[in-house]
């Protein structure tokens, strides 16, 4: 009976939420805090993508706070494993599952298995650049990355989706500088 419960629990946990990413790291060009006009480059590395239940990696989504603007890709992820295709920079894409993706990189299969993603398990390294937009309010400047498997996008339909939490790179707000005016003088 205990063995059966253990097996059921293990199965249940795998089907609800599983994690495929590990060994994530980043480098950021300056530590912050940031003011309007500051430009920041981010290097992100996914060390390993564990292909749980044959989930393959298919997209890297960059999540930015509203204070950022001018997101530019600098270095694309490399590697498709045994799959033919390429990593495409895209601002928005709706997958067959209805998942609204973007901005970020997504793997475009050019072989016989569309929408499966890359069979590579990493590592993946990429770089992008963002600029703090003009503002007078302390807008959100968070940066995080979601790694998305093809189970979430509809390319693989065998349960046990890789549903990893966003990897946090930066948390903070725009450093707003407002002028301090002296008292009014009268000659």
């Amino acid at each position, binding site marked *: 009976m205990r063995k059966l419960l253990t097996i059921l629990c293990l199965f249940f946990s795998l089907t609800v939420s599983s994690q495929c990413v590990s060994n994530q790291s980043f480098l950021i060009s300056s530590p912050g805090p940031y003011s*309007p*006009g500051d430009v920041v480059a981010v290097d992100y590395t996914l060390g390993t993508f564990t292909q749980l239940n044959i989930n393959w990696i298919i997209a890297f989504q960059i999540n930015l706070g509203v204070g950022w603007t001018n997101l530019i890709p600098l270095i694309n992820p490399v590697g498709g494993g045994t799959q033919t295709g390429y990593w495409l920079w895209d601002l928005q894409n709706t997958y067959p599952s209805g998942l609204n993706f973007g901005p970020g990189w997504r793997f475009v299969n050019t072989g016989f298995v569309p929408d499966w993603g890359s069979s590579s398990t990493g590592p993946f390294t990429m770089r992008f650049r963002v600029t703090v937009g*003009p*503002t*007078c309010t302390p807008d959100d400047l968070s940066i995080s990355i979601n790694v998305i498997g093809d189970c979430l996008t509809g390319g693989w339909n065998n349960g046990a989706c890789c549903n990893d939490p966003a990897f946090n790179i930066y948390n903070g707000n725009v450093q*707003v*500088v*407002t*002028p*301090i*005016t*002296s*008292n*009014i*003088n*009268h*000659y």
Partner: protein
Amino acid sequence: MKKLLTVLLVCFGLATYGQTTINPDTVCVNATGEQYFVTNTPTSTYNWVVTGGGTLSTGQGTNSITVDYTGVGSGLYPNAIEVIESNAANCPGTPVLLDVFVLDLSGNVIGPFCPGDPTTPLVGTPLGGTWTGTGVVANTFQPSTAGVGNYVLTYSMAGCNTTINVIVNNGPVTGPIQHF
């Protein structure tokens, strides 16, 4: 030498950065070209708002403006001068305000006098100012001190002035008594 330099530096610093205007500020009725300013930041712009009847004459957008008060009645005008500074990123600072009191002075009408007339009080409105001029002693007019003539007496307060004219006439000159 070091003491002299210290004194000069202190004086220069006060002259450059000192806050000289007390709130409320006082201007004279019908004054023109009154200059208001805040410390300048070269990359900032300044939006001034003048209310209460004053008219912004020159300098909008800069750290220094001139205001005319022609035809503005006397009294206190709260928040009559307002400035909002915006920095290079166009972010506004906190508004800075200044109340303005428009001062209208007047003096009582006195005379004409004869040289021997008694001392007469000089009354200015509002009270608290100072009278100056020929024959004025402690805010009174003494015809005997002034002597015969036409005089302009000045009433002053808070940098504003008003004047009145006073005449001291000759008395009659009576000859000696004759006996026919």
